[in-house]
C-alpha cells in the first residue's frame, strides 16, 4: 500500500529498490479512484501525466540520480500554477483556463524530482475555512464525511489524510494550511512570509499569502519546506535568507526551549475537548524539558477585524483581473462594463463576492483612513505584540482551531461565526510569523484535534524541532481514518 507511506518511508523504499515511483503513483491513483468519489478532494487529475513523471523519475533513479523528492507524488492546491494543467482556484470564473507557466514552487518540486499531480479542492480563491465555498462542491472530512475538512486548503488536507497522495501543497492566508491540517489529523506548516516564493500562487491577499506543505508527519514537512523555500527573483517580497537543512533541526531535544501560552487565547467558545488535548500536548512538551510561561498578546481581539479589512482590500484588487477579457469564462455584454458585470456576477461565488464588496468598501474614498489605514496600524501593533513575546519565549503554543470539524452546512449561513474559526491562526499571517499544526488528540466523536506552534520570522528550525519532538512522544499522527 505505497500510498499510505510518508515521504521519508517512500524515499527509503525507492532507494532500496523495493518500490518504484510508478508503483507509488499508481497506488495513489487507485486510491483516488476508490475513495475520492466520497471525499471530493481532487477537482481533476491526469493519471497519464502523473505516470509519465513517475516513469521519468524511475529512469532517473536507475541512471544514478538522487534528488530529495525523486519519484514522490505531491498533490497541488488548485491555486498554484502548473504548466499545462487547469488553474481554477475552485471557481467557475476561470472556465477552462490552463496555466501556461509553472509556479516557482512547482518548478522547485520538479527540480527535486517530485511527481507533481492533481488539482485539489479548496474554498474558491482560498476564501473560507471549510472548503464549502468550492464551486465544485465541498470536500469531505475522511474522519467523518458529514463534516467539513477545514479550509481553505481542505482538499490538500483530505488528500493527505485519506492517503490519496504522499504529501501536498496548500496556501495559508489566515490559517488555510494549519486549520484543515488540524481538522484532518495532518501536519500543516505555514512558512514565514517571504520564505517561499509566491510567484504562481494566485493571490488572495498578497501581504498574507504563503505556500506551505501538508504532510503525514513533521519530518516530511521539513523535507518539503527545504525543497520549496528559497530566493526567487520573480517575487519581490521573497526574502533572500539562506535555506537551512530543516531535517537537521529534528534532534528530538527541546530541553530549555521556552514556550509561551498567550493568556488572551483562553477564549469563549473554545471546545473543552480541544482545550484538554492541547493542554496535554503542552504538558508533554514540558515533560521533555521545555519551559512553559504565560505571555500576553494584548491586541489579539482586533486580529480578526484587522485581517478581514486588509485581506479583503487586497483581494478586491487581486481579483479584478478576472473579467473574461483575456482568459477564463466570459458572459457577453453590450459594453465592456456589462461584460464585466455579467462575467463576474456569474463567475464568482457568494463568499468571494462578499469579500470583494467588503474590500472595495474599505478602500473607498472617505472610508480608507477609518478602515484600511487604521487596520494597517493595528497590524503593526499585532506584529509588535509577537515580537515582544519572542523576546521572552522561543515558541508560542495554542490550539489550532477552537473546535473540531463541524458539520457541512452548519455555519454556511453565518459567515461571522465561520470567520471566528480562524481566531488562533490569523495573527500569525498578520505578523509574518511561521506556524505549524500537529495532531494532538481526538474528540469523543473521533475527530482530530491540532496543536499549533508559532515561531518567530525564519524560526522554522525551532518550530519543526519542537513539533517533531512532540510527535516522537505520541502516536496521533500515525492514526488513519477508518474509511474505505
Amino acid at each position: 500500500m505505497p500510498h499510505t507511506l510518508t515521504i521519508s518511508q517512500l524515499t527509503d523504499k525507492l532507494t532500496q529498490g523495493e518500490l518504484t515511483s510508478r508503483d507509488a503513483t499508481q497506488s495513489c491513483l487507485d486510491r483516488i479512484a476508490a475513495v475520492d468519489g466520497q471525499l471530493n478532494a481532487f477537482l481533476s487529475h491526469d493519471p497519464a501525466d502523473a505516470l509519465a513523471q513517475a516513469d521519468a523519475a524511475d529512469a532517473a533513479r536507475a541512471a544514478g540520480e538522487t534528488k530529495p523528492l525523486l519519484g514522490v507524488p505531491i498533490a497541488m492546491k488548485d491555486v498554484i500554477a502548473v504548466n499545462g494543467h487547469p488553474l481554477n482556484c475552485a471557481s467557475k470564473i476561470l472556465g477552462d483556463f490552463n496555466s501556461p507557466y509553472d509556479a516557482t514552487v512547482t518548478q522547485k518540486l520538479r527540480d527535486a524530482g517530485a511527481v507533481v499531480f492533481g488539482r485539489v479542492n479548496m474554498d474558491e480563491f482560498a476564501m473560507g475555512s471549510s472548503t464549502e465555498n468550492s464551486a465544485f462542491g465541498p470536500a469531505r472530512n475522511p474522519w467523518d464525511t458529514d463534516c467539513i475538512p477545514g479550509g481553505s486548503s481542505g482538499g490538500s488536507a483530505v488528500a493527505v489524510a485519506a492517503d490519496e497522495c504522499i504529501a501536498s501543497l496548500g496556501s495559508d492566508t489566515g490559517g488555510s494550511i494549519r486549520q484543515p491540517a488540524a481538522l484532518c489529523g495532518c501536519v500543516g506548516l505555514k512558512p514565514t512570509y517571504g520564505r517561499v516564493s509566491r510567484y504562481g500562487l494566485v493571490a488572495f491577499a498578497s501581504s498574507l499569502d504563503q505556500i506551505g506543505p501538508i504532510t503525514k508527519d513533521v519530518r516530511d514537512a521539513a523535507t518539503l519546506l527545504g525543497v520549496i523555500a528559497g530566493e526567487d527573483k520573480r517575487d519581490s517580497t521573497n526574502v533572500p535568507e539562506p535555506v537551512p537543512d530543516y531535517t537537521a533541526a529534528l534532534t528530538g531535544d527541546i530541553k530549555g526551549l521556552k514556550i509561551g501560552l498567550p493568556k488572551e487565547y483562553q477564549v469563549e467558545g473554545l471546545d473543552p475537548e480541544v482545550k484538554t488535548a492541547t493542554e496535554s500536548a503542552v504538558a508533554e512538551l514540558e515533560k521533555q524539558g521545555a519551559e512553559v510561561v504565560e505571555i500576553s498578546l494584548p491586541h489579539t481581539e482586533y486580529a480578526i477585524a484587522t485581517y478581514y479589512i486588509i485581506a479583503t482590500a487586497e483581494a478586491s484588487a487581486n481579483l479584478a483581473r478576472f473579467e473574461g477579457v483575456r482568459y477564463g469564462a466570459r458572459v457577453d455584454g453590450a459594453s465592456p462594463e456589462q461584460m464585466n458585470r455579467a462575467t463576474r456576477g456569474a463567475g464568482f461565488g457568494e463568499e468571494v463576492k462578499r469579500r470583494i464588496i467588503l474590500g472595495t468598501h474599505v478602500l473607498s474614498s472617505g472610508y480608507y483612513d477609518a478602515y484600511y489605514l487604521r487596520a494597517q496600524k493595528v497590524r503593526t501593533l499585532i506584529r509588535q505584540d509577537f515580537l515582544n513575546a519572542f523576546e521572552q519565549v522561543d515558541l508560542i503554543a495554542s490550539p489550532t482551531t477552537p473546535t473540531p470539524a463541524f458539520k457541512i452546512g452548519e455555519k454556511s449561513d453565518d459567515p461571522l461565526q465561520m470567520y471566528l474559526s480562524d481566531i488562533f491562526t490569523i495573527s500569525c499571517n498578520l505578523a509574518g510569523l511561521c506556524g505549524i499544526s500537529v495532531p494532538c488528540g481526538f474528540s469523543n466523536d473521533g475527530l482530530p484535534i491540532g496543536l499549533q506552534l508559532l515561531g518567530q520570522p525564519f524560526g522554522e528550525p525551532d518550530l519543526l524541532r519542537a513539533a517533531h519532538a512532540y510527535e516522537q512522544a505520541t502516536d496521533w499522527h500515525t492514526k488513519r481514518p477508518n474509511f474505505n
Partner: protein
Amino acid sequence: MEYEAVIGLETHVQLRTRTKMWCGCANEYGAEANSNVCPVCLGLPGVLPVPNAEALRKTALTGMLLNCDVPGFSKWDRKNYFYPDNPKNYQLTQLDFPSTIEGFVDFEFGEGTERVRINRAHLEEDVGKSTHFADHSGVDFNRAGVPLLEIVTEPDLTGADMAYEYLNALKAILEYGGVSDCDMEKGQVRCDVNISVRPIGQTELGEKIEIKNMNSFSGVRRAAGYEIERQIGVLREGGTLVQETRRWDDAVGITESMRTKEDAHDYRYFPDPDLMPHTPSEEWLAEVRASVMELPLARKRRLMADFQLPASDAEVFVGDAALGDYFEVAAKDAKNPKAVANWVMNNLQAKLVETGGSVADVKFEASAIGELVGLIEGGQINSKIAQDVFVEMFESGKSPAAIIEEKGLSQVSDSGELEAFCNEAIEANPGPAEDFRNGKETALNFLKGQVMKASRGKANPQMVGDLLKKILGS
C-alpha cells in the same frame, strides 16, 4: 474685467528601456500585436511584478535633469479601475511617495526665460491599446507594462503658447538625457492639460477643467487656446464653470464635456503589497548623478558665450547633440569658431546626409576642421580649394595640410608669379580689359576667373583682384 489663464500639465512619457517595467518582454513599438507579451504583462493569475532597474535609474536621472529631489523612499500603489486594456484592472503607479519631487524647468519664451515648477515625476505602467472593428474590439498588450513617467507641473503656465514652449523644452531635456525618444507618432508622449481662468488680481484659482489624452504639442496649444477663450466667454456672459473633464476634437477644433466631478472615478488607491518600496542608496544616487548631462538651454547659452555663435547656430548644435559635441572638439582652439561652425553645419552635415553616416563615422580628427579654417584664414588656400580639400579629407581621413602638400594646392601669393598670370589674362582678353578701363566693374570678375583658371585655383583671389586693378589702372 480682464481674465488670465492658469495652466498645469501632466505629461506621460514612455521611458526608453530595453524591457518592460515588470517583466522581461521587449519595450518595442510596432511589433505584431500581442507578440511582446508574457504571463506577467498579460496579468495572468499568479504572476508578480519585478521592477526594472533601468527604468528606476532613468526616472531618477529625469528627476535630476528637472532639478527635482530624489527621495530615499518611494513606493508603488494600485490605482483600481476596470478597462479592457488594463490587464490587472489596476494600474501600478506612485501616489504619495513618488520617485522624484519638487523641481523646475527653465525654458525660453518670447524674449526671455520662464520657469515652471515641477510637482513630481513619478513612474507608472502603460496599458494596452484597444482597436475597434466593425462588430468587435481587440486589445494589443505589447504596450501594457511599458514604463511610463508622469511629469506633473505646478499651475505656473499662463497661456497656450507658453505651455507649448514648455513642452518643447521638456521634450528636448528628455531626449538629451536619453530618457525617452519622445516620438509623438508612436504615442510616446501624451498630455493632460488642466486649465482654469480667473479675473486678473484674484489669487484663488478658478474651476479646473482637464483636457485628457492630448497626443501632440500643437494640439495642446490649440486646445488650450480654445479652452481659455471658451472659459472667459462663459464667465463674461455671466455663466459659471464647473470642474469637469473635456475632450479635444482636433478636426472641429473644440473641446467637449466628457464627465463632471460627480461621476469622477474612485480609484481606491492603496499600497501595492507585491512590491517593496524603492529605497535608493547614496552610492546608487551618486552613480545616477554622475550621468547627469548639461541641459539644452544651458548648452545653448554656453555655446553662444564660449564660441560667439549666433542663437540659430547654437540651436542647431543643441538640437543635434552629437553634431554639437563634434563642433566643440573642432572649435576648441579655433580663432574663428563661427567659421568652424559653418563647416560643421554645412559641409560636414551635407556629407553625412549624402553618405547616410553619423559623426561617429567621420574618418578625420574633429580638430582638422579647425586646421582647415586656419589655412583659409592664413591665406594658404582659398575657400574654393578648401572645398576640394574637405572632400578629400572626408574620403581619406588625411589632414588638410597633408592633402595640400600632396596635391600642391598651396595658394599662390607670390606677387611676381601672380603678375605674370594677370598679364597673360589681360593680353588674351583685350575686350574685357578695355571694358574695365571704361568703368565696367564686372569685367574684372571675368579676368579674375581667367587667372584662377590658369592657376588651377591656387591664386590668392584677393591679391589677383588688387593686381589686375593695378595693371589696368596704370
